[in-house]
């Protein structure tokens, strides 16, 4: 079999990192929300919104990093909406999240069509170009793959480290984790549980949105309808696979993207004769379900996940 050969090409590793980038952003974003005790099923819609918003910013003449910041801001606003409903009003996180996904994705399509009514072929922007990091990119194999990516991929990797440090080594991170495990303890410290949760959901949603923006501003150069294509839901599965840890989330996203990159290449080698291409395309979704089933026994959910906190309630 040629699989070993594929694993040794730089193209494979470069593709793995590229496919993993939106998943890293999305998984980290969902992870922060859930660590604070809020399931955010708005992720699929927020990623769509981010993909549209970032792209549109650049298409209207803004610069690329401005687009990333704009996408993050819009994501934050949807995070605020989600936490207004689930944290302050205590509504069902499942139902609200699905509502947010419906709203965010339909709004992105509406705005896109509104601003570009006659576009039959999707218009394009000049996306982020790969940036070769000096010295490191001269290394064999990993140089041209890991260290010759677009800046947003580097940003994703930096985010993993920052969020790991933030969650595990700072007082704010402690408050966030406590809000997801034992909100009464947070309250006893004189910290506002609702504010902590809202902040976490907003930051998490900003990350999801940036993950969506990567699709239109880095991986591709245009906004297509249905382009997020379930990546948000895969991120929700990856959070469980990662046992709510940022480092494992990176690992999960890479593993996942690696298998995805592999299937494309195996498909090309086999010429589509033996197995129809649809079965290769199913792989990410089947894998996500398998990952959840395998990890289910060891899944240690944040204890207060899904439980709204009302001040004055007794535990």
């Amino acid at each position, binding site marked *: 079999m040629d699989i070993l050969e594929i694993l040794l090409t730089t193209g494979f590793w470069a593709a793995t990192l590229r496919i993993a980038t939106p998943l890293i952003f999305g998984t980290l974003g969902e992870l922060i929300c859930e660590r604070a005790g809020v399931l955010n099923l708005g992720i699929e819609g927020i990623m769509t919104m981010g993909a549209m918003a970032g792209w549109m910013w650049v298409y209207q003449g803004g610069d690329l990093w401005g687009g990333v910041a704009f996408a993050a801001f819009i994501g934050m606003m949807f995070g605020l909406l989600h936490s207004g409903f689930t944290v302050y009003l205590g509504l069902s996180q499942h139902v609200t999240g699905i509502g947010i996904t419906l709203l965010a*994705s339909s709004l992105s399509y509406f705005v896109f069509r*509104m601003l570009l009514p006659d576009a039959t072929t999707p218009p394009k922007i000049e996306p982020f170009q790969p940036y070769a990091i000096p010295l490191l990119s001269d290394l064999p194999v990993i140089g041209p793959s890991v260290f010759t990516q677009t800046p947003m991929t580097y940003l994703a990797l930096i985010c993993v480290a920052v969020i790991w440090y933030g969650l595990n080594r700072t007082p704010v991170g402690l408050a966030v984790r406590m809000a997801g495990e034992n909100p009464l303890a947070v309250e006893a410290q004189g910290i506002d549980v609702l504010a902590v949760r809202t902040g976490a959901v907003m930051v998490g949603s900003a990350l999801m949105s940036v993950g969506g923006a990567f699709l239109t501003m880095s991986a591709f150069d245009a906004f297509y309808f249905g382009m997020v294509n379930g990546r948000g839901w895969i991120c929700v599965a990856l959070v469980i696979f990662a046992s709510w840890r940022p480092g494992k989330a990176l690992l999960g996203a890479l593993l996942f993207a690696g298998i995805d990159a592999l299937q494309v290449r195996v498909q090309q080698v086999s010429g589509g004769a033996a197995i129809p291409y649809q079965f290769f395309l199913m792989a990410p979704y089947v894998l996500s379900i398998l990952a*959840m089933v395998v990890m289910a026994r060891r*899944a240690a959910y944040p204890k207060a996940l899904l439980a709204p906190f009302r001040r004055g309630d007794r535990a």
Partner: protein
Amino acid sequence: MRLELRESPPIWLAGMAPILAVGAALVLCAGLIAWTGESVLEAYALLVKGAVGSRFALAETLTRATPLILTGLAAAVAFRAKLWNIGGEGQLYMGALAATWLGTGALDLPAFLLIPVLLIAGALAGGAVLVVPALIKNKLRVDEVVTTLLLNFIILLFVNYLLEGPLKDPMSLGWPQAAPIIDEGLLPKILEKSRLHLGLIIALLAALAIWLVMRFTVWGFEIKAVGLNARGAAFSGINVNGTIIRTALISGGLAGIAGVGEVIGLKGYLTLDLSPGFGYTGIAVAMLAQLHPIGVVVSAFFLAGIYVGADSMGRAVNIPTYLADVLVASSVLCVLVSVMLVRFRIRRG
């Protein structure tokens, strides 16, 4: 700010809540229409006219409502038991597949036998796909939201494969579509010169049946009890896992029937664009109806009207038809808030 449970929520408020919520959504979307530069009142007038303004429009709205009633019921029944079935879209296509498999000549039966067989087969196929995530939920505690969602993508790719491969109609001039359903398997039209078919009656009967089951039977009681408090239900001797599986069969079955209806009632053959997201819209239908089976019928007509009306509005004025989706999504969110405000009172301090 603090929330306080109302001792006895006023009945008029509970009744008005969904209507006020939809009104709020209409006002919010008026902002979007104003942004497009068109007149808000004219746009909404065109929408209403396109939905119910003529015999043709009304028939189209009823045709569109038919699958939405069924997927709405599917979501409503499952959500009552807190079984978060977001897989209606996939279950719908499984039902459509079953009807295609048996209805294109494999079974040679007279119409009065073939049509019920196709409906039952579709229901079984839809139910079977939901039983798998329900079993995984019961045995391994894997959240069914994500599994049912991901199954949608898997099933759609599977249907895509079948339509380009084994099920492809050689007479279809290259389009990926299945062979047509034989005449004995087609549902009769119930209104002349329209696309409205017997599926509407089937959907209405299903709504009535679900209402009766939920209201008057032990099964219905168990479903509601498991949803309200699974631990409490278990203590009082209800078989929680069994109830979840039963709910899954009913819910998936209803979505499957929606798929059968679209194939044997509307299109006559299976294609990949059989459903423009009926499974997902069904969730909105159920949420607007606050999971009440009869309410589902009303909200399915309402949402179908929005979609059909927006299509016709989009042809007349320069407003993207995605307005319909925005309107539906904001209605859902507004209804959630309104229901909350009926149960609780907001107090300062």
